[in-house]
């Protein structure tokens, strides 16, 4: 039986570079960095004081909306991106809303320092709690609990945009956004939904977000300027730069899209996921999990490695990821690995964790439609262990029709999307 075509009929972005997809892509194609010193919380004493923050004014209207009391900042970013994609796809005209599903990668808010300080008053430091005193003092805020729930996101979207179909949240760390798109793609192929609103979002630029990744030694700690800190595949990279943002795609059954006359921007051709099953703290040294995910995505698309024109790398700017991803690409593509343009959007945007896979998928589609391959900026000092063509510092004009987009999560969950320019 012939596989259904899953096309992209809308997309939306909100990132440190722009309030929407066009602004983000425009700045990214000029190689502009969205990284700066953190303004939203006091970073005194932290070894990393930079990040990619989205301007508050871009979501100020949502901060006063009825959802804002229990929606995390990540959720508000997502709502903004969904709004853009929803309108672009013209989903309002679809009357059978049980055919519209949602699949989102998101993790919810971190607890706040003031909550922890409040709670410590009811704890004796030796493992004993005074629950009743805590309860009498008002306990935790219900609304803060709701902001921490990752699934509140899909419920708010379903409610706001009247989507009565499948409704799932994926939480696979840095691969969550790509996995959410993969699950949405499968749902459309299987005929479970005609349309899926999918993507990912993250906003954990706060004390606990930074504390966690500082303890893991994952953040960039050596940099001469914020804009130069995220330097994937460069020899002087020292870790990733935390960022926030959201990316959304509208996936649709091809027949459904053409019947309603929707404009088509691209196509999801294949999807592969895998686990490293190696170590929680390290990637497989040969990138085995990444190899499996890429091979599965290419096979699922019914293509060969010769068909791939571009790879949007996970490229976090950590020592380990960039070497391992390079190794994995070489294993999948052999000699051709050196010919394929590879770039990392994180060099400009930083790492948006659950949002990354989705944001990068949108930028990949926009790149194909504009025949622009985005650059890996801050590439100055070649690393002998990262010896492929990373489109250094300047975007190139090149027609490309089929791309892979990689996402690898902490713990060893991997996802790879095979995306295509729409060819009727």
């Amino acid at each position, binding site marked *: 039986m012939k596989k259904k075509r899953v096309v992209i009929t809308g997309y939306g972005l909100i990132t440190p570079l722009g309030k929407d997809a066009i602004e983000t892509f425009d700045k990214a194609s000029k190689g502009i960095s969205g990284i700066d010193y953190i303004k939203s919380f006091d970073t005194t004493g932290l070894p990393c004081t930079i990040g990619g923050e989205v301007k508050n004014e871009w979501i100020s209207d949502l901060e006063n909306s009825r959802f804002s009391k229990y929606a995390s900042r990540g959720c508000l970013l997502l709502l903004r991106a969904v709004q853009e994609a929803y309108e672009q796809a013209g989903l309002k005209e679809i009357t059978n809303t049980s055919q519209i599903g949602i699949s989102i990668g998101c993790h919810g808010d971190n607890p706040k320092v003031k909550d922890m300080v409040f709670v410590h008053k009811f704890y004796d430091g030796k493992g004993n709690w005074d629950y009743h005193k805590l309860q009498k003092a008002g306990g935790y805020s219900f609304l803060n*609990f709701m902001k921490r729930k990752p699934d509140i996101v899909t419920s708010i979207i379903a409610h706001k945009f009247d989507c*009565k*179909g499948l409704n799932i949240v994926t939480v696979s760390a840095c691969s969550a956004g790509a996995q959410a798109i993969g699950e949405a793609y499968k749902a459309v192929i299987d005929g479970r939904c005609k349309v899926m609103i999918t993507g990912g979002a993250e906003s954990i630029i706060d004390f606990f977000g930074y504390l966690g990744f500082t303890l893991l030694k994952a953040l960039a700690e050596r940099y001469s300027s914020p804009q130069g800190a995220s330097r994937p595949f460069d020899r002087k990279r020292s870790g990733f730069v935390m960022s926030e943002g959201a990316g959304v795609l509208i996936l649709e059954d091809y027949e459904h899209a053409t019947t309603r006359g929707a404009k088509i921007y691209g196509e999801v051709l294949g999807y592969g996921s895998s686990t490293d099953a190696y170590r929680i703290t390290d990637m497989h040294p040969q990138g085995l999990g990444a190899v499996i995910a890429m091979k599965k995505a290419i096979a699922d698309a019914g293509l060969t490695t010769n068909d791939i024109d571009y790879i949007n790398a996970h490229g976090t700017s950590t020592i380990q990821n960039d070497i391992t991803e390079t190794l994995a690409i070489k294993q999948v593509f052999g000699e051709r690995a050196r010919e394929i343009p590879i770039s990392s959007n994180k060099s400009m945007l930083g790492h948006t964790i659950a949002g990354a896979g989705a944001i990068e998928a949108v930028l990949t589609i926009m790149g194909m439609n504009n025949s622009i391959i985005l650059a890996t900026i801050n590439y100055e000092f070649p690393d002998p262990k990262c010896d492929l063509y990373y489109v250094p510092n300047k975007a190139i004009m090149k027609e490309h029709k089929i791309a892979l987009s990689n996402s690898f999560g902490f713990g060893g969950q991997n996802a790879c999307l095979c995306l295509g320019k729409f060819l009727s």
Partner: protein
Amino acid sequence: MYPKAYITSVGLITAFTKDFENFINSKIPERDKCSTDFFDLKNHSICNISKDSLDISSKDSRIMGKHTLMLIKASEEAYKKTGFDRYNPEEIGYFSAIGMIDYENEDLLSAVIKSMKEGQFDLQEFFKKGYREIYPLWPLSMLNNISLCQSAIRLNIKGDNCVFTPHSDASLHSINEAIWSISNNKSKVALAGAVSEVISPQSIARYILCNTNKSRVSSPEMPVDIYMAEGSVFFAIEGETTENKKLASLSGFGASFGFDDVSGGVTEQAVKSSMYQACRGKKVDLVFTHYSRQQDSFNEISAIKGIFGDDVEFVSTKSLIGDMLTCAGAFDCALAVSLLNDKMPVFINGHVKEKKYNTILINAFSVEGNVTSILVERV
């Protein structure tokens, strides 16, 4: 058309049984002997599981929360019973729903306490000495997906995977995704299931604040205190050609969304839509209801009667074993497997009829309006 898939083994751990073999004889504690204090942990169904019982090294266990131990235990039982180790690791799918992961306050609070200066949290103090109280790999233990990754390492599973969270219907999504993964040849076989939240002051507070502790289990008019339950349930799922014994057939799935702003519950239309998609006109012998807040329960009963008439038998397990939240649907599914194989667990005896069940429907909702149903049939 919904693809045909089969449950070939079940692995589980709950407060009252350590595996599926003992499930049938397991008894639950009598609630009337408990105190009425909701914050008294003894009232809730706490799982008894230790790192030693799973032969986990002390180094590995430092970044394993209790939810990880439960997930590993249930997954291993399902995996080993079906001999999944004969498959290429890349051909084994792994899908899990995982409840809210809470910070272990003890992991952080001593750092906060050491960082206090004149009654205020002081960042300088924190970076001078406070942070040293925190284990460097602590952040990994609170990432939602780490449990599945740790279990994948132990079982050497490398195939198609996903982690869903933490809607109370997420476990049924996990099972559904495994079925589709097999039907689309992305996996030859798959493990699918869920793990509940770990019961803690935070999770109890959240439960109360979400108003799910006063559920309407036996009658929508009569709220009953529902306590929380810990546990994990996993299923080995295989296609038509399996050589393993087929314990039950997974033959229908439905999902819908509907939240009524006025009543603050799921809508009757959403429940009907979900059940209709799962059953497609099939006769059902028993429905395991979700039953939670009052309006949800009214709407669920109304939807059940609207679709199946007045004669259909329905029951909620939450008053018996407690509420496993994210894992609730998977637990009801394990119970359905037992009943469909003519085994009546002691704890449910008297709450359902002693008869041959052929088709059982399971409902699971989230407090935010998601509704999911799955149909399980006798082979």
